[in-house]
């Protein structure tokens, strides 16, 4: 086989090479400028955030040894050598974990009901009027952007310490987040059934009930379950501001340096979050699986 690689004449090659080099140089310049701008932003940010590498390196040993300490019992033994001593407060913690789960359940359900009531007004294709849509959208946006724990701080003052403030904070945040997602599902729904129902002389309410709802309910359930998962994590820190759940116990353990308690509570939280993640994942798979089979 005698094939030769054809080589272009030098002149032609030179112009091509030139063009290539120029293109590459332009790209490199762009990348360099972007990197320089980013590094400058980082530098300013480092000044703004009081980054002190000296502190960091002096105390980094503390961070590592912190984990050493939380994994050591008062008696000096490693925690896993004596699980009974490690989880001495398991009964109390499980009760508080149950409370955390209840907070997120009640909060998610309330939020989902409100989001359900509001989302038809927020979606472009079903909203009765542009003014209603605008107002509802802004309300949902505020409920979504203000972090749940800020609501909790305010509610603790209005409703008093306790899980009620946590539930309401989670409910409001969930309304904002789910309202937007629900409205997006509705916007993707097929509008032909609505026309069909309207042509029979039905009211707006009947249109929503019989034309839109059957299309979107599985999506709603899936998003609500996903939100429940997120809310379990959120509810686990609501106790930091006095709004109930396991967070209260954790913050006391961290602040008062009850080292082995910190690790025990963290382990129970992580395991619970894992279990909730897996079971809601399974449930969502079943819900959607059923939908596609129909």
């Amino acid at each position, binding site marked *: 086989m005698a094939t030769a690689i054809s080589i272009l004449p030098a002149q032609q090659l030179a112009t091509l090479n030139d063009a290539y080099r120029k293109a590459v140089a332009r790209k490199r310049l762009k990348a360099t400028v972007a990197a320089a701008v980013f590094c400058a*932003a*980082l530098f*300013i*940010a*480092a*000044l*703004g*955030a*009081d*980054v*002190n590498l000296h*502190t*960091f390196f002096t*105390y*980094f040993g*503390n*961070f590592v040894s*912190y984990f050493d300490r939380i994994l050591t019992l008062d008696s000096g033994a490693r925690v896993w050598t004596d699980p009974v001593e490690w989880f001495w407060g398991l009964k109390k913690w499980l009760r508080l974990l149950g*409370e955390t789960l*209840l*907070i997120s*359940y*009640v909060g998610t*359900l309330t939020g989902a009901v409100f989001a359900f009531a509001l989302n038809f007004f927020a979606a472009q294709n079903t909203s009765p009027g542009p003014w209603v849509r605008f107002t509802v959208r802004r309300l949902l946006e*505020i409920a979504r*952007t*203000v*972090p749940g*724990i*800020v609501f909790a*701080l*305010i*509610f603790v*003052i*209005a*409703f*008093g310490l*306790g*899980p*009620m403030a946590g*539930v309401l904070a989670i409910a409001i945040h969930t309304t904002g987040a789910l309202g937007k997602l629900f409205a997006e599902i509705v916007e993707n729904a097929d509008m032909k059934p609505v026309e069909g129902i309207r042509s029979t002389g039905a009211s707006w309410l009947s249109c929503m009930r019989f034309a839109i709802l059957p299309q979107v309910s599985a999506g709603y359930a899936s998003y609500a379950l996903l939100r429940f998962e997120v809310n379990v*994590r*959120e509810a*686990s*820190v609501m106790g*930091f*501001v006095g709004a*109930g759940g396991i967070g209260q116990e*954790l*913050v006391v353990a*961290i*602040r008062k*340096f009850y080292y082995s308690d910190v690790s025990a509570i*963290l382990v129970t*939280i*992580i395991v619970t*979050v*894992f279990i909730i993640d897996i079971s809601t994942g399974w449930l969502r798979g079943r819900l959607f699986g059923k939908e596609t089979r129909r």
Partner: protein
Amino acid sequence: MSQLPKPDTAELRAKYPGVFERPASARLAMPATIVAALAIFAYGLVDLDFSPSRLISGMSQLGWITMMMIPPNPGASFPLYMQALGETLSIALLGTTLAALLALPVSLLAARNIIPSNLIRFPVRRFLDSIRGVDTLIWALVWINVVGLGPFAGVLAIMVSDFGAFGKLFSEAIEAADRKQVEGIRASGGNALHEIRFGLLPQVLPVIAGQVLYFIESNTRSATIIGIVGAGGIGLQLAEQIRVLEWQKVSFLILMILIAVAAIDFISSKLRFAIIGQRAVV
């Protein structure tokens, strides 16, 4: 006037038994689920100390608080709040960048197409999962114990908690990358590092850049929260003003957060489109 003939129900029943006679389990499933859900809800309300009187008195308190919030007014502390907001944005930017830099090498270890052996990949993945299971606020409390109160603890908290999330997302992006380009590099005689540098990174980097920008955006929110436990930024000011009941300042701070988040959203979505193009929105 001709009338439509009345439907013959009996005949229809005989023709489509599946529609008219669903098994009891299918008919009862939905009501049973609803009843169970409501029962747990009611139990929750009782267990969590909900009472109508508390709800009503709380609502009136809340209404009063809302009245006190209007109009938003920073008083003389406006420069201080702007500085705190800058601090918050700095925390978000630095924390996310550091997390991305740390997570990139680790995500290679967790990707199936780079490390085929389960022996390394499995522990790395579980490690990342555990980090993600712990909330940013908890990490902030831990870091405050280590480096003291202040924004630096916030940076480190965001860094650690995002490290877990990035490790997972990056490794998924790497696993989704096209195999052919890596094979091309190997065919032309490149070693394993060359494969990663020239075959994999050019495919993965735009996706990663998009995700990092998205996280900077969402971390602006997290950075406001971690101030509440003492890790600097605007959250610290917010928590303080709520505790001393300065409602006008509180509403001003909340407005500032809303505007800052909206601005960051806008900028980062523009940048994301510029980097990854219209077709692939993360």
